């Protein structure tokens, strides 16, 4: 072991060495921007310098051939630098306006859609799913690919009322975060316990503590220490599964997709908001999840038609009210839409403010 190389704890790398020179030069000195066309941002600095950023969609989970192809394009058209957005879109920064159109053409020719800026539907927040995670109820890469195929037209255009941020999560842990539209998993059956395994791989005190409704009790099963779940209490959240894989929660049939609407982290106009349940019980249907896609598209279509400029989904529903949202989207309203978790009282109508 003496020869082992100790790590260099260098932490977060300094970005300046990898940053486009125009950005370095005008660092902190930008004046304004506009969007000459979908997929292109035009930023002007106090110095008078101008840059055009061209944004293209990627599959996030990239093979190195794709990355090298993106590098080739960057070298030929993009001055040798790229920027990735938080949504896994790639951006090329150009100082020469005349290169914008050829770059776009090239990207499109190579199969990278140009768009995702402004009031478009940008790339979906991507997680791991069956490709890599140890607890997924569905896939991530496949869901995102299938959905982005369907939403491609809205990615390359800027025709929505405001930007649309979609997120997906492949289990109830929700690495995908809040979204204007969020597509998540809801388990509908309590975990089936594989008692033979519990003693070996389960951190029993941890799993008991992890259950948010105290539904798990230690128990002896076939003379061996195991666990039991009070099925009446269990809310099927799956929190017990990571510390105790024998708590089989994922089910090909009963782990369903659910759709949530109106999440928003920006402070623009209203304060940040959590997304809200609008549809559930949607089959987890690989490889293209058509049922979920249909609902997402229906919501987007209604929103596009009914919302005013600059209204995010949350703003729009706030104006028209939730009853009308269900009416326009033709989604059923059920008892499950009425919250009963902590803070649920805040979600009840404690007024006569009603739209008829």
């Amino acid at each position, binding site marked *: 072991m003496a020869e082992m190389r100790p790590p260099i704890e260098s932490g977060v790398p300094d970005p300046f060495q990898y940053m486009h020179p125009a950005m370095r030069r005008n660092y902190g000195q930008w004046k304004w921007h506009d969007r000459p066309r979908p997929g292109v941002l035009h930023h002007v600095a106090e110095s008078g310098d101008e840059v055009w950023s061209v944004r293209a969609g990627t599959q996030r989970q990239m093979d190195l051939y794709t990355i090298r192809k993106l590098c080739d394009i960057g070298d030929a058209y993009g001055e040798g630098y790229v920027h990735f957005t938080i949504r896994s879109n790639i951006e090329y920064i150009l100082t020469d306006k005349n290169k914008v159109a050829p770059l776009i053409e090239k990207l499109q020719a190579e199969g990278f859609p140009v768009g995702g800026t402004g009031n478009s539907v940008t790339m979906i927040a991507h997680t791991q799913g069956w490709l890599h995670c140890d607890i997924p109820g569905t896939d991530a890469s496949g869901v995102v690919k299938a959905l982005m195929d369907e939403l491609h037209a809205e990615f390359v255009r800027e025709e929505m009322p405001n930007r649309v941020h979609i997120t997906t999560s492949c289990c*109830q842990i*929700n690495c995908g975060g809040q979204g204007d539209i969020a597509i*998540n998993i*809801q388990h*509908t*059956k*309590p975990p089936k316990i594989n008692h033979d395994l519990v003693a070996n791989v389960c951190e029993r005190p941890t799993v008991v503590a992890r259950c*948010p*409704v105290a539904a798990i009790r230690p128990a002896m099963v076939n003379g061996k220490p195991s666990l039991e779940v009070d099925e009446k209490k*269990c*809310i*099927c*959240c799956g929190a017990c599964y990571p510390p105790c894989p024998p708590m089989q929660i994922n089910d090909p049939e*009963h782990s*369903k997709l*659910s759709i949530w609407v*109106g999440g928003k982290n920006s402070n623009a106009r209203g304060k940040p908001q*959590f*997304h*809200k*349940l*609008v549809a*559930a*019980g949607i089959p987890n249907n690989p490889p293209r999840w058509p049922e979920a896609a249909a609902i997402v598209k229906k919501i987007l279509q209604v929103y596009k038609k009914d919302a005013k400029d600059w209204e995010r989904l949350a703003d729009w529903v706030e*104006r*028209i*009210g*939730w*009853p*009308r*949202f*269900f009416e326009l989207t033709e989604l*059923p*309203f*059920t*008892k*499950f*839409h*009425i*919250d*009963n*978790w*902590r*803070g*649920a*009282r*805040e*979600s*009840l*109508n*404690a*007024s*006569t*403010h*009603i*739209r*008829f």
Partner: protein
Amino acid sequence: MHDTPMLDQLEGGPWPSFITGLKRLAKDNDMMVDLLGQLEHSYETRKGFWKGGTVGVFGYGGGIIPRFSEVASKFPDSAEFHTLRIQPPAGMHYSTDLLRQMCDVWEKHGSGLVAFHGQSGDIMFQGIRTDKVQAAFDEFNEMGFDLGGAGPAVRTSMSCIGHARCEQSCYDTARAHRDIVNTFLDDMHRPALPYKFKFKFSGCPNDCMNSVQRADMAVIGTWRDDMQVDQAEVKAFVASKGRQYVVDNVLTRCPTKCLSLNDDNTLAVDNRNCVRCMHCINVMTKALKPGNDRGVTVLIGGKRTLKIGDLFGTVVVPFMKLESQEDMDSLREIAQNTIDFFAENALEHERTGEMIDRIGLVNFLEGIGLEVDPHMIEYPRISSYVRMDGWDEEAAKWNERKAG
């Protein structure tokens, strides 16, 4: 007379003085002499000296608030100082003749002190000895008046002046008040519920009866068609106040921004998004009015602080008509189901709002036989912590209702 130097300081000032009134009573009434003494004692020590007990009238289990003095040795004549809670006419209308009769009874049997009204709406005849309670009640009862509620019972209710003198009134509050409360007189007079249960009736969303926060069941008037707009009066209002005043004080205060002032000074109302808040109508009383298709919204569970904190009622009926006898019967049925469910499911000393908090709105709705509706919520579920295995059945129910 006892010396009352502290109380005397409450005789000055422009507001009518209850001390002056008490002193006037004390001239002819020894009970009031000692009552003043005990009150002065409270002011000096900053402590109260009453305790409860059991006092009632024949046939009823509640309606009298018994008060026995803890300092009776010092103030023997006010050793007993009970209150009769008497239900007022719906809307609190009185002829002077009636008031005089009431005074006469109270002069004969009680202290002569009356409160118009208690916070729950009772006329409170305050200050009577145990041995006189029955006689006083009998006289009031013969006059057509009945005891109100106390203890774990249906309580005395209040209704706003409504139809009697208010153009905003969307239903007949007095009638609903009487129809509903008089259905539950047994639950009022023989306290056997888990805890108190209050009704309140407001004719419109201005909620002059504070029902949303002070009633287990609040019945509030509203309308579902378009509001009535008299454009000529709108123009007159704009002319007298100026466009800017109207924009700043009417348009921008609309919670859903559904008003727009046209160039010709008429008003455009986006009735689809109007939430019937009343603001614009309150400001432009001559120009705007509730619509014609009127009815009520029902909310359940309002109350003050004990024991989980203040609660507002929750919408359980977004809209129902309240005109025909059948309408009234439907409301009575909802009230009956609510009280039955409450009686069976609430814990001791638990109000409806607390019960709903404990069991969840959905279980409560199922218990009283009402269907879920998006108007009952401000926004749908945020928490994913829920088991949804009945989704398809529930969705089917909704789709059927929509189709039907």
